[in-house]
């Protein structure tokens, strides 16, 4: 057990070291993609806490992502706050929104919760373009943010800095999530997922844990959204449609449910596979411009067929196989 823990720690550190070296090796465009991956990682960590560990399905995390993004954008553009301050404030708002949404969610189980959150995802773009909020949201024209440069006179390009800024958040939130999951709280969350009645009879306050878990999960989505607003430099209702929420769900399933490390693989999948699908579809000629969706679907099915427990599960299985057969 300790050997496995040590191995896990080495792998985690190696991944972070690689991520830290990346901005000094890659072009601006790759750094933008890298930042997108990190943003997705944060959102997937949050969703995995909720769905993977606590068993509450959310099809509406794009909504919390949107609240975070718009929150940060409004604080920066309309109220003139610095971007680094806007993100924690916006994500605190998301925590509140998630926590409150957690109450009605208590009454829904399984598919019913999925539908309720689905409605949230569908409603978000419409609410964002609602005219009553135009003074804040900019309506269907959205809000444009100025991309910040590196602070403290650091000799970094804007892209390098934003990537590192995202990495800092990712590392901190990853660390927080691992600690949360490892301790008493994590055991309670998993117990509620697997045996809710047993958990309650053991004295776990299921209602409190579930709503708080919803809040924390929304907070993660909110940080991701806030970072996205800063990195993209633009928010509009079109950025936060249903496909965004669905891609998060795809991400945690591909990465591996109830696996925090899997978030990285999930994020890589949702960032790069649509592009890959588009590139593959070009091979089918010009009339196949609409094919990426189909190819994406096929790739998704292939991945799930080969790795039903996600990338993280597959790696665990592979590691176990190696250990059983080759370990002394």
């Amino acid at each position, binding site marked *: 057990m300790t050997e496995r823990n040590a191995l896990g720690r080495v792998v985690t550190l190696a991944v972070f070291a690689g991520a830290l070296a990346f901005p000094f090796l890659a*072009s*601006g*465009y790759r750094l*933008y*993609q890298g930042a*997108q991956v990190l943003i997705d990682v944060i959102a997937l960590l949050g969703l995995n806490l909720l769905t993977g560990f606590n068993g509450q399905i959310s099809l509406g995390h794009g909504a919390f992502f949107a609240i975070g993004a718009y929150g940060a954008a409004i604080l920066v553009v309309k109220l003139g706050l610095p971007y680094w301050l806007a993100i924690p404030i916006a994500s605190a708002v998301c925590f509140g929104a998630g926590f409150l949404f957690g109450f009605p969610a208590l009454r829904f189980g399984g598919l019913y919760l999925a539908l309720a959150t689905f409605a949230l995802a569908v409603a978000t773009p*419409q609410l964002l*373009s609602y*005219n009553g909020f135009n003074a804040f949201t900019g*309506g*269907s*024209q*959205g809000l*444009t943010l*100025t*991309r910040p440069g590196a602070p403290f006179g650091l000799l970094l390009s804007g892209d390098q800095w934003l990537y590192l800024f995202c990495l800092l958040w990712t590392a901190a939130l990853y660390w927080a999530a691992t600690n949360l999951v490892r301790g008493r709280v994590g055991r309670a969350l998993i117990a509620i997922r697997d045996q809710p009645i047993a958990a309650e009879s053991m004295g776990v306050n299921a209602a409190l844990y579930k709503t708080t878990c919803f809040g924390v999960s929304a907070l993660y989505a909110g940080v991701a959204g806030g970072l*996205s607003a800063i990195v*993209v*430099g*633009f*928010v*509009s*209702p*079109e*950025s936060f*449609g249903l*496909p*965004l929420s669905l891609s998060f769900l795809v991400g945690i399933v591909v990465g591996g449910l109830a696996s925090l490390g899997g978030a990285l693989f999930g994020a890589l999948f949702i960032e790069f596979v*649509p592009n890959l699908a*588009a590139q593959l579809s070009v091979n089918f000629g*010009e*009339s196949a*411009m*609409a094919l*990426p*969706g189909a190819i994406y679907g096929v790739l998704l099915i292939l991945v799930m067929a080969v790795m039903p427990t996600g990338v993280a599960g597959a790696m665990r299985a592979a590691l176990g196989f190696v250990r059983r057969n080759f370990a002394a």
Partner: protein
Amino acid sequence: MLTRRSFLQSSAAAAFAASAGSARAANAPGVTDTEIKIGQTMPYSGPASAYGVIGRTETAYFKMINEQGGINGRKINLISLDDGYSPPRTVEQVRRLVEEEQVAFLFNTLGTPPNLAIRPYCNEHKIPQLFVATGAATFSDPKRFFWTMGYQPNYQTEAKIFAKRILKTKPDAKIAALYQNDDFGKDYLIGLKDGLGADHAGMVIKETSYEVSEPTVDSQVVTLQGSGADVFLIAATPKFAAQAVRKAFDIGWKPVRYMTDVSQSVATVMKPAGLEKSKGVITAVYGKDPTDARWKDDTGFKEYSAFVEKYMSSKDLIDINAAYGFGAGTTMVQVLKQCGNDLSRENVMRQAANLKNLELPMLLPGIKINTSPDDYRPISQEGLATFDGESWKQFGELYQA
């Protein structure tokens, strides 16, 4: 004697000679002796995928130009990437086009939000963002965004044209306006008032808005009728436009009706409103309708249909978006021809802002594309058409906004 002027002239001449020899502004990235690489994003997937045909048409059009020998010996290589109409993806794809693919500039990138998202990047890095495919007026603002240029008549332009016609034919008109409460509707109202001018601002006696979420606009129409107006401007999207036309007829209100070109589809507006009830509605047009039989023997239309038959499929022929892409492609080719061998980004921008009386095969006869460093609205003329119960019939002169 060496006057100051002649000194300036001769030194300018010397400078010119020097620059002609070696130091002319460098060609943009993506330009070689045999190729001009340009880029765009298109919603091939996602909610706006119906517009993807524009990108397909343009790709096919440049293929035809290349087979005919290209432009000044260079072939056009258009890299058209899918952004799914999602602004973060647009930014990603545009950065890929500029930084990895090294395109010379962007052409006809589609959609208001995607173009808004990339506009700061393009202007900061001085990359021409040419002929953006959207009707929002904000993309024709050379003072603030030198590197971004619109293409089709924007909503304000169209409303101004209606205002001009109203002033001309009915100077004592009392105008009632129904508008969608968003940027589209508000742009329209701004254009109408601009076109009327401060002296005639009082002509608009009633304006009423609706929200997209409302089931009908019946009560708004009744209110507008109550104002006693005799001109009815409908700045509404198709469903509401149809309701407005029908309701006005049903309550016996007979004003002169002006309809935004957003809602001129016979199938989705005129038929639901009732073909009889829609008779006499006026709209603005700038392109030849590929379904209209009167263009059957028109040279421009023949050119277009020959292209579609050979390079696309015949089902694309009646798609208004294919005709649009064909026109945008033609405009782009003209700019590149004007650039000659100086394909620097500065010169591409200079020539795009220097189109003079350009006529296109699928524009209405008489409509000419004109741009200048102060005017980034390539198509700013439109004609009027009236609905005769079956189709739109163009009438009268062209209007310039």
